[in-house]
């Protein structure tokens, strides 16, 4: 793994105060996104994927509390920035966002052009809002809409979200995400509301555009199949902990962590005896100590409940947080 990281999340822990107590939603999450790569974050519901995304974007709910960790964007810790700075410099500009449901993500009462141009104008900053730059924004947006294969981009700007199909809306949102030349694009299950043929077209587009514009991408999903189609690298999460990270092929073909192994074995492409993983994910209100997977893990030992195992480098760029791999040498 190179030192050229766009984003590095280290040891992130976040708790959220609820009516029923404090939920430790993220316990310990490590994530590295190298420049120009597409990194998938995979996990089942309740693993903390969306909290991780919200933490990176700085839009955690009010009741949330960052307990520890860092989120470094090019060496700057986003957790130390004020909301004002995040709005001015980071969100939408350095880091942009492609939401899950294209049907709900565009404001229905504004035309597509109004919404996207507003973002560009705002991020262009004061003193750069003359007619000339306004024309410039418009030209760039038309160019982007063409790049995401929206027919008649000039006309499309004047149209309202309900006049587009789901796939087209997602294309518009992708254009919006690229509008301010971000370093990192975060895509939160951007295709889960779409049909497979449309999904593939969107995935292709994301792949092509990240290459073309030289941006990195964090791609959140629950679908290993999509990870296999799109991602260069993948990080697996379980109950608020990152358990394993590495190159996609490595993880899919040679998973190391017992959770990853069992999860992949549940996929109908990999199994014929459909047994699943025994037990259920513990509530973050009463999370198990140590490795949070230990109550369901067939290889669990006494130490597993004592402390979360630190990450071990197993192969080039492949890190596992499991005591099974805590040999005397490879311990980092």
């Amino acid at each position, binding site marked *: 793994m190179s030192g050229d990281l766009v984003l590095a999340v280290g040891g992130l822990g976040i708790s959220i105060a609820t009516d029923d107590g404090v939920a430790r939603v993220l316990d310990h999450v490590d994530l590295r996104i190298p420049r120009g790569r597409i990194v998938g974050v995979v996990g089942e*519901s309740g693993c903390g994927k969306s909290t991780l995304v919200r933490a990176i974007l700085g839009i955690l709910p009010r009741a949330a509390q960052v307990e520890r960790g860092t989120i470094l964007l090019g060496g700057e810790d986003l957790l130390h920035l004020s909301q004002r700075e995040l709005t001015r410099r980071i969100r939408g500009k350095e880091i942009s966002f492609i939401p899950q449901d294209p049907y709900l993500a565009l404001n229905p009462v504004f035309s597509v052009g109004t919404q996207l141009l507003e973002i560009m104008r705002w991020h262009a900053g004061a003193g750069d809002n003359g007619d000339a730059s306004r024309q410039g924004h418009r030209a760039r947006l038309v160019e982007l809409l063409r790049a995401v294969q929206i027919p008649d981009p000039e006309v499309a700007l004047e149209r309202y979200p309900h006049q587009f199909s789901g796939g087209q809306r997602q294309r518009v949102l992708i254009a919006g995400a690229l509008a301010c030349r971000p370093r990192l694009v975060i895509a939160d299950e951007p295709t889960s509301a779409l049909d*497979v*043929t449309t999904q593939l077209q969107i*995935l292709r587009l994301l792949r092509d555009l990240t290459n073309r514009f030289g941006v990195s991408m964090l791609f959140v999903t629950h679908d290993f199949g999509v990870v296999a189609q799109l991602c260069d690298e993948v990080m697996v999460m379980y109950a608020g902990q990152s358990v394993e990270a590495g190159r996609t092929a490595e993880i899919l073909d040679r998973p190391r962590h017992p959770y990853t192994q069992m999860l992949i074995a*549940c996929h109908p*492409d990999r199994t014929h005896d459909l*047994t*699943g993983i025994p037990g*259920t994910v513990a509530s973050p209100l009463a999370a198990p100590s140590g490795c949070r997977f230990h109550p369901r893990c067939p290889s669990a030992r006494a130490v597993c409940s004592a402390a979360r195992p630190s990450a071990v480098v197993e192969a080039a760029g492949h890190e596992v947080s499991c005591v099974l791999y805590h040999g005397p040498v490879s311990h980092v």
Partner: protein
Amino acid sequence: MSERVILAVEGLETLLGGERRLLGRERPPVRAVAGVSLALRENEILGIVGESGCGKSTLGRTILGIQRETTGTIRLDGRTVSGLGPRAARRARRDIQYLHQDAAAALDPWWSIGRSIEEALVISGVGSRAERKARIDRMLAAVGLEPALKRRYPHELSGGQLRRVTLARVLVLAPRIVILDEPTSGLDLSVQATVLGLIRELLAEFRLTYLFISHDLSVVEEMCDRVAIMYLGRIVELADTRQLFEAPAHPYTRMLLASAPRLATGQDLGAIPIHGEPPSPTAVPSGCAFRTRCPHEIALCADALPTLEPVVHGREVACHRWRDLAAAPVTSARRAP
């Protein structure tokens, strides 16, 4: 699986909606199911696959009888059960039950699990209170739930548990055919596996026959004996699962198979040309509905509607050019061996 046909559907058509209002925009009805014929064999799992809006759910609802067919016949065990009013249709088809996609929404939030299951029996006028209780307890055990769960309410259960509850509610009526509408949608991978396993166990235990509606090709390949591919209200290909996945004949099937995310490494995102999105069901193209997205379109496709024709034993395709295409090689991501 036997060869005995338990349910035969012939030329089924279902029109949805359609209204003409004073000064309002006219809304023509949508032909959600546009002439479907299929035979369900006893004890098999027949998959119905297609993208959203292809009419697969409407087909299921029409076969169940809560949606009235516009034309066509449905025969259950050789007995014609179509052409009836809504309540009569359901009475005649009580051997067919339906498992809803969204299990949480399929239960009345105000009713306890036990009462909800019992209601199915009460409506059908089954047995005394004690008898019903015995049947419910037996069924809960069969789907792997504690009897204590009966006093709980839907919002207190997990997705997997709710799926089991809805399964218990339809199976307690001892149906012979169950229509499963996306039975694992919204479930996590690990839960999906156990639910699929259970569904398969119940098939054997209660000698059921399933119509398995899904858009997830991995699941369908794993679960189904035969698969029907639907596009805009019609079946375009029907074949044994293995045949279909090994050598898809219809161009749409090929496109679908190539797009489906599979758990295999080394996939090439750009291997198969895919363009466009399905046309709106209110504006279906003439002739073959798929021609607007088909790379192999010829003049004939716009003029004539291709009908399902047998290719080899047990395999049917609705395409004017399947013969030409059979020679062409197919690339698709195959499951790992």
